[in-house]
């Protein structure tokens, strides 16, 4: 079986933000999963528990032939053997040029972004928009010669660029318009939309005629994730059973959760298709048909299997031994909780704090939010290889085992 999986030849790939959560998974995949063969970088995983047993990733994702380099603000953490690491700042042209001179990448995969939760507006704009522009210009050869030609540029966008944080999104595709300005209540999404637009417009316009595309993951989670898995397990570890029984909304709302490995896979596929298109353009052959085009396009990436919001959290809690049965659930209507959240926010706002329950959180746990990834399936040949349930076992297993190892260390 493992011999049948396709081989993807990519040349030299520079992963920008390669020490972040998604970046690490992309690097791991490009290097054919050192995390599964090298014990020094293996991910913690509970042993002897059938719920956490799953097949290796390396036998299912394609085999990559690539020289991998990483640039990140700090590269001391999340390193993998086999990649070259460079410290660099994407908001500085000089810093980027010096990295490009050393790496001479054929492909740039740009995943760098500040942490949504701690990012202030200024920083978000500076890194997401200005940084992306700087990086595009350096890669495309517009900021001076660095001794090579970058052929393809894959940008990690976000599915939230078409979401106003309030409305339901039901099986939404890439034709949905960007939400910006006063309709966009999340500044992060606004900067991601601006940056995505920059990237897509830059397609084939740079001196080196670099081709570009954008990947929009929806609800990304997996090993090492600091948002979804981390937050809900932190909640269940602290909260009493009574609190865990509370459910906001009726739990008929479907939500996309996408395993990080599948998102990484989409980046690899996008890069691979882009260099093929670039070669066609360069050889003067007819470009791809409109409905097959990858360059200049954005792609929703999901697990193609939305989950009822609370089922996902309860499945994660159940993996840590906290089972909430359907008859134990207290269903709290959204209207009531939204109001309480609103009051809590105003009161806490007076003393300059954010409460644990906000209106935004209430809406998020009650809304339907899932996307169509038909375009990626058709044009990139994408397929969510790891299922949602396996992904969750991986993500939770990582947290559980790491917690166990830490408490063991403390015990000694």
């Amino acid at each position: 079986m493992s011999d049948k999986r396709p081989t993807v030849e990519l040349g030299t790939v520079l992963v920008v933000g390669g020490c972040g959560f998604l970046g690490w998974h992309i690097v791991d995949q490009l290097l054919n999963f050192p995390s599964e063969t090298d014990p020094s970088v293996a991910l913690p995983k509970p042993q002897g528990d059938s719920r956490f047993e799953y097949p290796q990733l390396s036998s299912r994702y394609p085999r990559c032939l690539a020289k991998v380099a990483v640039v990140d603000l700090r590269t001391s953490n999340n390193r993998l053997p086999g990649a070259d690491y460079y410290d660099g700042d994407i908001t500085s042209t000089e810093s980027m040029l010096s990295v490009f001179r050393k790496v001479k990448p054929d492909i740039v995969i740009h995943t760098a972004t500040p942490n949504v939760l701690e990012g202030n507006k200024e920083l978000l704009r500076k890194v997401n928009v200005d940084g992306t522009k700087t990086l595009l210009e350096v890669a495309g050869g517009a900021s001076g010669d660095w001794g090579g030609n970058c052929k393809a540029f894959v940008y990690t966008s976000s599915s939230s660029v078409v979401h106003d944080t309030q409305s339901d999104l039901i099986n939404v595709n890439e034709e949905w318009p960007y939400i910006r300005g006063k309709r966009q209540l999340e500044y992060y999404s606004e900067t991601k939309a601006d940056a995505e637009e920059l990237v897509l417009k830059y397609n084939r316009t740079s001196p080196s005629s670099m081709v570009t595309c954008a990947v929009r993951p929806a609800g990304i989670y997996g090993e090492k994730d600091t948002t979804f898995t981390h937050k809900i397990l932190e909640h269940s570890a602290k909260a009493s059973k009574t609190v865990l029984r509370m459910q906001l909304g009726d739990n008929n709302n479907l939500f996309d959760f996408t395993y990080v490995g599948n998102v990484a896979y989409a980046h690899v596929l996008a890069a691979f298709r882009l260099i093929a298109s670039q070669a066609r353009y360069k050889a003067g052959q007819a470009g791809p048909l409109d409905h097959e085009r990858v360059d200049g396009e954005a792609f929703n990436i999901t697990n193609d299997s939305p989950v009822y919001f609370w089922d996902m959290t309860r499945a994660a809690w159940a993996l840590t031994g906290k089972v909430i049965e359907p008859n134990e659930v207290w269903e709290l209507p959204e209207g009531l909780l939204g109001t309480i959240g609103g009051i809590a926010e105003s009161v806490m706002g007076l003393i300059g704090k954010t409460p644990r329950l906000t209106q935004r959180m209430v809406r998020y746990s009650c809304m339907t939010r899932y996307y169509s990834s038909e375009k990626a399936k058709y044009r990139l040949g994408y397929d969510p290889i790891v299922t949602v349930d396996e992904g969750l076992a991986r993500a939770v297993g990582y947290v559980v085992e790491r917690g166990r190892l830490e408490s063991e260390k403390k015990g000694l």
Partner: protein
Amino acid sequence: MGVGSVLYYSFHPSELRSILQWKIWHNPVHERNVKDETETQKICFKFLDQTSRSFSAVIKELHPELLLPVCVFYLTLRGLDTIEDDTSIPLETKEPLLRGFKDIMEQDGWTFAGNRPEEKDRELLVQFHNVITEYKNMKPAYRAIIKDITDKMGNGMADYCRKAALEDASVKTTVEYDLYCYYVAGLVGEGLTRLFVEAEFGNPALLKRANLHKSMGLFLQKTNIIRDVREDNDDQRRFWPKEIWSKHVSDFDDLFKPENQEAALNCSSEMVLNALEHAEDCLFYLAGLREQSVFNFCAIPQSMAIATLELCFRNPALFQRNIKITKGDACSLMTESTQNLRVVCDVFRRYARRIHKKNTPKDPNFLKISLVCGRIEKFIESIFPTQNVEDAKRKVVGELSAHEAERARLEAENRQDMWFMMALMGVIVLIVSIIMIGSAWLLGARFDLAWKEMTSGNFRPSKKSLDHEL
């Protein structure tokens, strides 16, 4: 109607309503023309009534073009089944009968009296020459389809009987389980689809995507296998694949022991999960049908199946007795399955959500079941989307969609009505007050004194004066 049912329906009036609704308002798309039927045709329909509980009604409402072909197809397969099921027939007799049944169909006057007396459909084979007569009267294209399926199914059954007689025929893997269901039901789906397409009542693409019609049969068969687990086990038959049950109990009989209830429920929910994987294909298939009676014929059993799966899901009674959906539910499902695809999709979504509501995290397949329900909902969205790009784009530029504009108009109208009502009430209050004060004044009320007392702070009559009067 017995006293029991009178009592039952007085507490479940909505079910009674569904039954009456179906009985009174359901108009068959096509009706049999009994007076022009030949003697053999009448006999065939009589056997159809006798041998099938659920299918005879829907078959008899089929378009005249397919009425007899489907009836004969059904009776032929029923004949095969009656030979296969009869354990009193030795393998040496049985095997050639099953394998050669396609040729038997061509022999005028063929009958078979070799079944044991207790075999319930014995009479069908005793008078099988009637079926053969009608088979031979059919269009050659239909005959070829029926013959081909009879051939495949006869051989499939013969293989199974041979295996059962010589070695162990129990279903081990889920692949074997699918194969078994394919022989007993998937093939029927294939034959029917070919008949529909031949009659131009179905999209020819249905034949190209074999997994669609295969799923139609498998979904029904798997549902029956789940629902009948107790009855089948009592009759020494086991269709649940070992690959699934062995994860939950070490011996199949343990499923029926009360102390293993939790394991049994988890096992049955894995079986339900396995069946639900076909639901999307079934809806996709129904989208390819072009004639109302054919749609009804296919949709009714599918709706019944998902409702039955919901009934079986996490229901301990499954292992104790025969369970079935209530007559009221069955009638409302039939009403809903004889409209259009959208209504059938609503049925599927409704039952998917009910399954999701009963799903519990203590089940090892909790998330997988939740995911399959979500996929059914997503699939329905892909056929009948609730949102569209045009509305989303309009919203961004601040325009309202037709629907939203209508809603805004209604809201504005409501607001206007409300203001009008409040103003009206204000006027009434004003008039009533004027009348009351006016009549008090006419009767000599001293408002000047009252006003003076009030301005000096005396809002109540003084206590002293009251005491004085007493």
